[in-house]
């Protein structure tokens, strides 16, 4: 039954990594995530948090089960459809910032817009604005290798927000940042979440950050326990 408020709907999702000893990374996951939610995903190392994020972000295929995005079942989508969807609707912030070292901070942030082939002057202004918000207003034309880990993470955050996606997946987004910057970033997420109704799904070890979320999903051994 389609519900306009539902962003993501997971039905009996299983993810098994094949091999001599297959690893059952996700077991019968059933989950509904609404538009505009601010969710923290917690759990011990190796519990399946990153796998869940990859599956939700259409970076990895599920072994069984159904994943609905905005009411559409995604298992029939081909690579191209998934790529277009990722570009328009999903923003990623990886644990390691994963920037493109050959490009400046501004170009890295603009990359999703380049890929969407929608680049124009106002988008460039938007990229500069986001970079300024994350505290890099004076680093537009600096390449990642000349910046600190925290600064690079902030570029990655700016990049995830660039195309105004429906949902942002963040894997330990503030792990590499000092407490003050971490708080600033959290506040930024919250502000965007409130203003633009953008969904945030944040994988974190930090209890303090998780407790600020609207909802906490706890995963242990590939299963949602809470």
């Amino acid at each position: 039954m389609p519900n306009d408020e539902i962003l993501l709907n997971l039905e009996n999702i299983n993810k098994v990594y094949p091999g001599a000893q297959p690893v059952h990374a996700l077991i019968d996951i059933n989950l509904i995530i609404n538009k505009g939610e601010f969710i923290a995903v917690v759990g011990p190392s190796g519990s399946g948090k990153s796998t869940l994020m990859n599956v939700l972000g259409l970076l990895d295929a599920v072994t069984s089960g159904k994943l609905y995005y905005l009411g559409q079942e995604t298992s029939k989508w081909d690579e191209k459809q998934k790529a277009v969807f990722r570009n328009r609707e999903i923003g990623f912030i990886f644990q390691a910032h994963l920037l493109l070292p050959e490009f400046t901070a501004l170009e890295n942030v603009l990359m999703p817009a380049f890929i969407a082939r929608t680049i124009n002057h106002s988008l460039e202004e938007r990229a500069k604005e986001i970079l300024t918000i994350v505290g890099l207003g004076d680093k537009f034309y600096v390449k990642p290798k000349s910046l600190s880990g925290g600064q690079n993470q902030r570029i990655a955050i700016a990049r995830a927000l660039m195309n105004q996606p429906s949902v942002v997946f963040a894997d330990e987004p503030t792990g590499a940042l000092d407490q003050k910057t971490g708080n600033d970033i959290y506040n930024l997420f919250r502000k965007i979440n409130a203003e633009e109704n953008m969904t945030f799904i944040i994988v974190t070890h930090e209890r303090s950050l998780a407790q600020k979320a609207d909802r906490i999903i706890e995963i242990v051994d590939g299963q949602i326990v809470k």
Partner: protein
Amino acid sequence: MRFYELFIAFRYIKANLKQSIIITTAVSIGVAIIIWIPSINLSFMDDLINRTVSSAPNITIQKELDTFETNKELFAEKFKGENLLLTDQVLTRKRKIKSSRRIIQQIKNIEQIEAIAPFAEGQALLIRGGEERGVTIKGIIPEELKIIDIEKDMVKGRIRNLTINDIVIGQTLANKLKVDMGKRVKATGVSGIPISLKVVGIFNTGLRAKDEYQAYVNLRTGQQLLNIKTDVSGIGVKVKDIYKADETADEIRTKTGLYVTSWMEDNKQILDQLNRFKLIILFINFLIVSSAATSITSVFIMLVAAKSKEIGILKSMGAENKSIMVIFLSQAVFLSFIGYFIGLLGAKLMIMGYSNLLESSGETMFSTQVPEFKINTAYAVLAFFYSIFTSILASILPSYQAAKLKPVEAINA
């Protein structure tokens, strides 16, 4: 930005300068050699063919084989062990045509024929002071100059309008006989009667066989020296398309029933050798292209491996497989484009260098002049497509692998 793939590709080229230089170098070396080897060899071949074709008639008509020759086997049976001598006598005897005018009338309307001239050719001795030289003397008429392109090789004097007292000799022969323009030499042919001739022209064809052993005189003088009265030893023909000489020779043979040979038959061995040589060049080129392709492939495999994480990031941001392929393929095409022009320049420099080297090292065995070396256009065009095609072929597999990388695997690589 409509083509962000190119934006990324160019940035990669700039950022990974070492790899870019390796690929460009591989392509440019390949291109330079692909162009250089055939250009040098084909220049030699063209030069050889041009000199061969221009220094002798395209087609030569001689007297039909007489009964001795046509019944050679019968005679051989009869005169066991003496057939060699018999053949030799026959060959000597058969080279005389009595009615050259009639034959010229018979064939002059053949479409391919451009010029016809009778000649008297045979061995003679040239004497000047204490120097003596055996030469091939050729008695010609002015029309002959349309058949053999000797006028361009004249370094002194003239070859046109020779009187019965004139002779034109090669530069090397002039040096050996120690004669110059206006000096006289004594010529003795099979007639045994010496004739005093004035040197009115000296040529330098670059072919040793001509420059040292060939002399031209008036047809009448030639006939006198060879003691053949008003007969001629053959009729030379120039055709419009030198590669149709064989067909035209057949036509003349059918019309006249005479013994007709074309330059292609006369130089069959050289032509066969040249064709074999072309095949070898093709094979060498194939090896060069293969080795260039291998190095390009390995560089690209390394490049893709080094960039797999970034490929994953691009995919997570929505880059499609074909875009990833375009990013890597366009690098290959662009670098090979640059490599081609560097290679072309390299080939030009190598050709110039080789030409200078030959000029400074002096004469070769067959030729006294260095041919004019120029870039062979066909091979230059071929090398262009080779370079682009090879780089695409060499990078398509790594690019495809890059495109097929799963985002998660790439990011975690």
